[in-house]
């Protein structure tokens, strides 16, 4: 069944921009990204939009649809009220490049500052390790992340308070949690988490968990356990005393 819809799309770049309305016809079974592509091919050849897999696996087409951070490729048109104008704008927590494309390079820089995976010695003579499935389930949940950065976009510490220099955001707390909870890893990342990476800024509003397209329970499973580890390490008076007086070596 064909239907006419109007998209209100933000067009512009770092210097500024405006919303432009595009009216087009849609057929059954489309997602928002299809409609963007149709407008691009027929009305606005130069409209910038980042996308790759169109199957919710690469995390490239993040945008704000009617104000909610989502993947355009996984938002079916029949989940939106097409009688009203549909607003599509870029992620607002990152600088604009053009139209729907934002500069997410900060995320890539943050990741390089987190200490890399550092495994214990192999368990078997042939250089391999043994891990039980139940011990890796949690880490596998975190490793589902497709780096769409929607959690970073919605996080008020970044979006509203612009703490990009002091806080790494939910994506990289999940990344750190995956490393810290990896059964083979021997590294300690708690000092940075507490200081330069600013885990204390998160006040667990869980907005990140709500927008995660991979349904990772970011706050409960990753951030809160990391906060607990930091608290145990630095703010537990009995633990502090024990570390001072325990026999060394």
């Amino acid at each position, binding site marked *: 069944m064909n239907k006419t819809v109007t998209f209100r799309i933000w067009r512009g770049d770092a210097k500024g921009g405006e919303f432009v309305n595009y009216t087009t016809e849609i057929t059954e079974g489309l997602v928002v990204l*299809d409609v963007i592509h149709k407008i691009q091919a027929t009305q606005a050849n*130069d409209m910038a939009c980042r996308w790759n897999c169109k199957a919710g696996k690469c995390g490239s087409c993040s945008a704000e649809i009617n104000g909610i951070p989502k993947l355009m490729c996984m938002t079916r048109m029949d989940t939106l009220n097409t009688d009203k104008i549909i607003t599509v704008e870029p992620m607002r927590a990152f600088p604009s490049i053009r139209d729907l494309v934002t500069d997410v390079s900060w995320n890539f820089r943050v990741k390089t500052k987190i200490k890399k995976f550092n495994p214990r010695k192999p368990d078997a003579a042939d250089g391999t390790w043994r891990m039980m499935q139940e011990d890796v389930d949690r880490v596998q949940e975190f490793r589902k992340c497709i780096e769409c950065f929607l959690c970073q976009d919605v996080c008020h510490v970044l979006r509203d308070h612009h703490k990009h220099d002091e806080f790494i955001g939910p994506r990289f707390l999940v990344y750190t949690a995956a490393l810290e909870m990896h059964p083979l890893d021997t590294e300690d990342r708690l000092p940075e988490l507490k200081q330069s990476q600013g885990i204390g800024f998160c006040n667990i509003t869980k907005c990140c968990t709500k927008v995660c397209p991979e349904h990772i329970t970011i706050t409960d499973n990753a951030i809160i356990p990391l906060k607990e580890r930091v608290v145990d390490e630095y703010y537990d008076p009995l633990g502090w005393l024990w570390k001072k007086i325990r026999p060394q070596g």
Partner: protein
Amino acid sequence: MATNYETHEYDVLVIGAGGAGLRAAIEASAAGVKVGLICKSLLGKAHTVMAEGGMAAAMGNVDDRDSWKVHFADTMRGGQYVNNWRMAELHAKEAPQRVHELEAWGAVFDRTKEGKISQRNFGGHRYPRLAHVGDRTGLELIRTLQDHGIHQGISVHMEYTIVSLLKDGDRVVGAFGYDRERGRFRIFKAKAVVVCTGGLGRAYAVTSNSWEGTGDGVSLAYHAGAELLDMEFIQFHPTGMIWPPSVKGILVTESVRGEGGVLRNKDGKRFMYDDVPENYKSQTSTDPEEGWRYTQNDKNAKRPPELLTRDHVARCINREVKAGRGSPHGGVFLDIAWIKEKIPNSAEHIKKKIPSMYHQFMQLANLDITKEPMEVGPTTHYAMGGIRVNGETQATNIPGLFAAGECAAGLHGANRLGGNSLSDLIVFGKRAGEYAAKYAKENSAGKINDAQIEAAYKEAIEPFERPAGGGSEGPYQVQYDLQNMMQANVGIVRLQNEMEFALAGIEKLKARAAKVAVQGHLEYNPGWHTAIDLKHLLTISEAITLCSIDRKESRGGHFREDFPNKDPEAQKYNSVISKSADGSMKLRREPIPAMREDLKQVIEEMK
């Protein structure tokens, strides 16, 4: 003048940042040379993320009868013996080490009960062989390489497109391209260049490939003088989504069948039992009960016919649809929900084993695969052919130019087995990085030729200078027309006259592409990028069509209705494409070198 462009200098430049490119970059930087890495998209978004099922490596964790010999024989049988046997040997021998290496870099594979890396069944593999992480193994691979690679001192250039390889005499000495964000052109000087640009599915209308899969590397290498091999062998994956229309072509992983999913026509019949090829009969069950046991890792059971090789399954689906026995939207049914008869909490089991398929259908088609069957049909998935390389070093016939991964040819012959792609990336990505670094250490930097750069620049920005209207058109319509033509005429079932029609059509489209006009600016302009990709799409389409017309038999991914059988004589050669002095594309048949005696014996033993 060329001096106006910012220049980056590297020892090794890797073009493409999927599994093969990342692995090559890691290996080269570990060898102590300066490495640049070009990503067409953002780092970690390459099409490798779409790989679902797993990576094949004969570790023998689930079935200790497995060994490199069985893997080698399976790969050759699947490729119908036109593979580069040396590559198939190295691949089978080295894949286990490469997988273990990933674990050392932080990959978290699914486990066996003993805590080892688990392995699953897949089409054409005799034993459970695919290391996997649910059905998102490609994401695990690319993220592991990415997270390891960013600490290696590799210079990463994201969202760059290469428009031309630069040459000094016969040798490749760099590349010229632009950044998508701003449209600024850059020179990349390099002592060695590794092309790892992946696939070319975008030459077809129905494909599992993303917009990036336009065969850039194959075309760049060809225009720089490299030979292409076996371009007729295109894999049409049997199970792509077909409904709703917007998702047509998106992959439905073979793991659905590996975990017990079955194919049925509209009459509910498991049609795969009707047609089992002779050379697979001894390995294939005739009893559905035995087939089910096979998917549940019963070592004594034979595989169900749904797990025959992809080329065969795709053709059987095609046949059912053409005979009017298809599903409502022109495919067949793939049913995993039926396993509720066998497993008590089957819904949870399915969500655990193939979670992203569950979400993909739930979100895109509003269909619960734990309750209802999916509708699926063939989709253009993978190019077995590509740049011709030396099996050990991944060097092309052009000094300084290497290639690995999907854009390189040889390993898979006429048909790739599922799971052999991810292992291909890490085995030959590593080798390409190693030998490119060696080449860079042994050779000094070449000279960059300004005239070449200016010509490439002029060609790239020409679409802006053509006035809109007056005989010119936008790039999208040309692209659509090419895709539809290739789909209809050089697709899953091929005929001489249709392919000749396509070959003539390509010439007409070339003329249209030369007049394409784009508007706007250089910054992140998708219309312009599409115009640039057209050259690559047309080049590879011509190569595919030429090779397909020439091979007068059916083998693997190349099926001809007018020559439906295999010709034993045609098993003795590969198709080789090269660019002649006058710029035209020429094709020759080249004999396949005789296989080493010990490998022949392996194949005999495994029959």
